[in-house]
């Protein structure tokens, strides 16, 4: 009797130790997180915070796993029975609980040793489960579809308006087309190179028939084949025109980029 019992006890002891270890770690994690939140909240960043939560949740899940582990005896089979309730302060208990529980008295015992929810809560749960079971599957299905429908409708509305809103704000950014790059180009070239301001030289009329400025521009855009049609060069005297034309026809000296 002694041996198996001791074996069982031993197992229980070790598993309890393990459990305690885990819980302690978890507790430490929580307290350090709380400490950080309280004293170092300026430096805490969101990823940092998430990291802490991750640590805590992993701690919880390992504890859970430990409880479900095979080696773990069924703790449920053990009964904790309070032998003595005393209203006096218990320094040993106080030390064990790090000052959280000062005495093992009537007040704290129901909270600490509870294995079932409170009766009122139990009642409410009961009520709800009864109500749920009273609904037929068809009705439930109907309600489900109705709910789905409503939700999807709302979703649609929200999406539509958010689209519109996006478009609006986009438009706002687009609207101030307060200047036209075409005009800028026209004006600057007029002021620096005199294009469209220069009067056609009466002597070189035949070579470059006078045309309206806009027309001329269109021509330039359309006739990409011969964009380098020489403009009348001011400062030339009629006698030199012929040679000029020749030069332009054979190879134009400045190729534009």
């Amino acid at each position, binding site marked *: 009797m002694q041996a198996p019992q001791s074996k069982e006890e031993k197992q229980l002891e070790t598993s309890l130790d393990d459990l305690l270890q885990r819980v302690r770690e978890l507790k430490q994690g929580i307290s350090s997180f709380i400490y950080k939140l309280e004293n170092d909240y300026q430096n805490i960043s969101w990823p940092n915070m998430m990291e802490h939560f991750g640590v805590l949740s992993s701690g919880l899940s390992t504890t859970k796993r430990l409880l479900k582990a095979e080696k773990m005896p069924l703790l449920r089979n053990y009964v904790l029975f309070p032998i003595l309730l005393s209203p006096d302060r218990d320094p040993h208990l106080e030390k064990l609980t790090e000052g959280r529980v000062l005495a093992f008295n009537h007040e704290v015992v129901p909270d600490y040793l509870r294995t079932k929810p409170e009766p009122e809560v139990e009642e409410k749960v009961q009520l709800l489960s009864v109500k749920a079971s009273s609904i037929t599957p068809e009705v439930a299905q109907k309600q489900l579809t109705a709910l789905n429908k409503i939700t999807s409708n709302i979703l649609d509305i929200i999406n539509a308006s958010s689209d519109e809103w996006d478009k609006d704000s986009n438009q706002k950014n687009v609207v101030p087309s*307060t200047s036209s790059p075409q005009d800028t180009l026209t004006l600057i070239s007029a002021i620096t190179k005199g294009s469209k301001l220069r009067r056609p030289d009466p002597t070189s009329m035949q070579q470059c028939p006078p045309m309206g400025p806009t027309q001329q521009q269109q021509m330039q855009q359309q006739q990409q084949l011969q964009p380098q049609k020489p403009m009348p060069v001011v400062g030339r005297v009629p006698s030199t025109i012929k040679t000029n034309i020749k030069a332009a026809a054979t190879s134009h000296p400045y190729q534009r980029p």
Partner: protein
Amino acid sequence: METTSLAPSLKNIAPQQEYLLQASILDANRDVLLHRLRGLCDNAESNFETFADYEAVYVLSFLESSAVQQSQAVSFRVRHALDDPEAPDHIRYIGQAELGDRARPTLVRACLDVACSSNVREFLQEMGFKLDYDCVMKGYFFHKGRMKVTVYKIFRLLQPGKTDSSNWEPLSMSHLVELSVVAPLGQEQIGEDMKNFAEQLKPLVVLEKFDHRRLHN
């Protein structure tokens, strides 16, 4: 021989550079820009300063103008204020625009302004200059420190030589906006200042350094 008392004033012509940023604005949005400029620039309390100038560009080039020498042609811009008969005429020489590297915030070109008597047109023609083109510029003028902002419209003259306003034809539906500073060579700090100033006019106008080589005549 060089000991005359005039010598210093003649020899020390510091080369002046013009730092330039350009853009344009549609006529409809002009007033918005003007009011913003008025707030940004000096003398906000006074009214807009306007100007109306007649500019004629004269070119001196060789008779045997082969294309290579064409690049050596010298052009002088002669300006004459139409709204202020008292103001002297003006010769302006503008050098080839340098873009510089990408880091340089503005266009830089040599620039020389010389006030002169009103017979300058005939005088230049007698020197061998030929009229290249002319136009009228009318618009508004602002200054902030040594930065100068002009917002003006360019007009073609329908008939040569007549400068009254019935003879004008606007070149486009936009005003040209220029931000410029004329300063001695090598003051790169100005470019930064201009860039900062231009930044404040966005997105109304986006003042840029325009590559003049990109322009075709």
